[in-house]
Each structure stands twice: as structure tokens, then as C-alpha cells.
């Protein structure tokens, strides 16, 4: 691979950022976890579709349902953060725009994960406010 490096890069001793393997493995591990979680989610959506608010509250108050929903959200938002990061890195070459979009993607996914988890916990663990 040394033949593809520029003389300047060789002089500086720069190679890869040495963090690609973690991204690769994180993407694969989360994808394996998402296979059963997404199949479960499709089945759940059919069941809850068109249902009332009370039905949905009763459903999320089951600890198994709440736990699997939280796992789906955390794994999903993690996986999509990794995937969107690759897309941004592939198509956006302007350094400032790229950095801004990467940060936006990261912050958005983290915020979405926290909002989803706290919303589920509020209803699942709430003391019958509704």
C-alpha cells in the first residue's frame, strides 16, 4: 500500500487515523443485534397500529416491551449514526461542511436516543398519570 502514499504523507509518517476498525466492528455488532429487534418491531407495529392511547400505555408498561423498545432505540440510533457518518465522509469533501454535518449527525442521534428512552421510561414507569 505504500505506493499509494504521497511523499509528503510518507515524510510526515501519517497513515490511517487508526480508528476505522472500531467503526467497522461497531456497525457489524449493532447490525446483528438489530436483526431480531427490527423483526420484533415490525410484529409490534402491526399489533399496535390503529390502537388507542390506553392500549399503547398498557403495552409499554410491560417491562419486556419497554426494555426491548429501549434496546431497539439505542442500537438503532447508534447504528444509523455510524451509517450516516460513512455517507457524509463519502460525499462531502469540504472540511468545514463535513465537520459540521458529522457533528450534526452525532448530536442529533444522541439527542434522539435520549428523548426516546426518557419518553418510554416516563410512560413505562410513570405512576398512572393518564
Amino acid at each position, binding site marked *: 500500500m505504500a505506493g499509494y502514499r504521497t511523499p509528503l504523507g510518507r515524510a510526515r509518517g501519517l497513515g490511517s487515523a487508526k480508528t476505522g476498525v472500531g467503526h467497522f466492528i461497531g456497525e457489524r455488532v449493532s447490525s446483528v443485534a438489530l436483526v431480531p429487534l427490527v423483526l420484533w418491531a415490525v410484529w409490534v407495529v*402491526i399489533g399496535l397500529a390503529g390502537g388507542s392511547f390506553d392500549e399503547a400505555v398498557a403495552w409499554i408498561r410491560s417491562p419486556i416491551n419497554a426494555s426491548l423498545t429501549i434496546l431497539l432505540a439505542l442500537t438503532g440510533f447508534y447504528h444509523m449514526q455510524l451509517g*450516516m457518518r460513512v455517507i457524509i465522509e463519502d460525499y462531502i469533501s469540504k472540511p468545514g461542511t463535513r465537520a459540521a454535518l458529522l457533528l450534526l449527525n452525532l448530536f442529533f442521534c444522541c439527542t434522539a436516543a435520549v428523548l426516546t428512552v426518557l419518553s418510554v421510561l416516563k410512560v413505562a414507569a410513570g405512576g398512572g398519570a393518564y
Partner: protein
Amino acid sequence: MADATTGVRARPLSPHMQIWRWHVTMAASILTRATGVALYGGAILLMGWALALASGPVVYDDYVALLGSIPGKIVLLGLTFSAFYHLFAGLRHLVWDSGKGFTPAVADRSAWAAIFCAAVATLAVWVVAGLMGKL
């Protein structure tokens, strides 16, 4: 080859997408990424559902009504296909990660299989939903 002033070697470029003849592995690859982006939107809908649920019955009923409208159902149909296709494409990638399935004939077949399985699974889910009186 090397440019004397910058030291940058002329790098090989791959031809732009538009001059390639379409083939199924290329379509499967693009579809994997496109469905991934669609599922990004799907995850936002999941977040919206959780937020609506935490906001009480009025907001929740509005949210469910929105998803149950015709445009809502079209989006959900697209997301069903996206979820299944991205799942089968992901399984294909996991097989590739083990070092198998790279010959053109096998890659072509697995691409068609992923598209076919996703279409059948999508149809099955919506037929089941219809039989349960959910449509």
C-alpha cells in the same frame, strides 16, 4: 508520474456512475444505502411515537391518525420494504465479512435474493395487517 511541485502522484479515478451499465449488484448496493437513509427517517418516526405517547392521549391520537392516513400508510409501506431490504442486505454483508460469496454469479444471485425476499416479506406483513383489519 509525480508532480515535482506538490509531490502529488496522479491518482487513478473510477468512472462516474452515469457511464456504467446498470447491473443488479450495483442496484443492490445503492438500494442498501438508500434504504439506510430511509430508516434514519423511520427511527425519527419511532422517536415521534415515544414522544407522542409521553405527551398524553390528545397528541398520541393525532400522531396515530397521521400515521394511519393515506400518506402515512405510503410512508409506512416504504419503511417496511426499507427495513426488510436493509436487513437482508446486511445479512449479505455479514456473509461477505466471512470471506464468502464474492464471485460474480453468487453476488448476482444474493442481490436478487435480497430484493425478492424483501418484497415478499413486505407483502406478507401488509397482507397480515390487512387480514387483522388494520388497514
